[in-house]
């Protein structure tokens, strides 16, 4: 895996998070979860409609235009 601290990863990526246009410096999904403040809670993630398991987030590199869903448990019928 590439070093996430290189300058190439410092550029802003234009992505969508839970339906909102978002600019992020995170290079990976794991970084995005931390950046967005979800590290403390129990969340599940999907990128472009595909499930990404928690253990796979560190290796899931973000690209411009990615559509990320970060979900948690809620009331339901």
């Amino acid at each position, binding site marked *: 895996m590439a070093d996430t601290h290189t300058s190439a990863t410092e550029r802003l990526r234009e992505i969508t998070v839970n339906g909102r246009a978002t600019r992020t410096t995170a290079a990976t999904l794991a970084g995005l979860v931390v950046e967005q403040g*979800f590290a403390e809670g129990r969340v*599940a993630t999907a990128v472009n*409609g595909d499930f990404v398991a928690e253990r796979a987030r560190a290796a899931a590199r973000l690209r411009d235009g990615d559509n990320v869903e970060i979900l948690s448990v809620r009331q339901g*019928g």
Partner: protein
Amino acid sequence: MNQTEPLRPSSQAPAPQPLTFYGETIASRILLGTALYPSPHIMSEAVRASGAGIVTVSLRREQARGRTGQRFLDLIRALSVRLLPNTAGCRTAREAVTTAEMARELLDTDWIKLEVIANDDTLQPDVFGLAEAAEELVKRGFKVFPYMTEDLSVADRLIAAGCRVLMPWGSPIGTGRGLANPQAIKTLRAYYPDVPIVIDAGIGAPSHAAQALEMGCDAVLLNTAVARAQDPVRMAAAFAAAIDAGRSAYEAGLIQPSDRAQPSTPVAGTPFFDLGPDGPGSKPL
């Protein structure tokens, strides 16, 4: 019969059968939704009053920097019930499969209430997407609880896909109209006597739930009927009583409706019975 002998159940009544979902024995025949209650506290009390052993939950977008999901999860975990996550709001098989995977990771369960919705107005199941998603989810090791129409051909497809529970709607979600097509539910029961049938959606009153259980359905899944009642906790208890009554009635063996009247009072010994219509007993007063 000797008056001091205790009454025993008739030997003809079927022995009470425990309810099992995917090999797990379930104590309660109510599955309760967790949405639409006036407060989290009332929701918790309603779950307790219902005696439900299984409650449904959903997955929704977490708000930025929020811990809403965690707080809700803590509340639900305190109820010590089994969680059945749903795929509510999914419009395609792909969305439903992804949501199911997310739910499995979040809740550490392979149970999933599979919803693929065809139409925003009717909230009816998209039975084609449902069958497609069910096949894929079974392959991935899920134990699928499909929210389906009451159609036998849909049940056939879902059973073939590996579903071992059927959850036909009674009527559209939230309408409270009860069993719109009881004949089709009877047909499902007759064709799949060994598959648990849960009426999911449309139950509005305890009498609807009792009717479903009397027909041999195994359980009901409720949400709006309890959550939107004036007193949800009391209504949850009312449903519990109705479901107990309905199940007991089914196990006790209901009489079959008849086109012909049959006197309940014994005919033998009826006074004036042998005088006939022109006898002295028939004279005008």
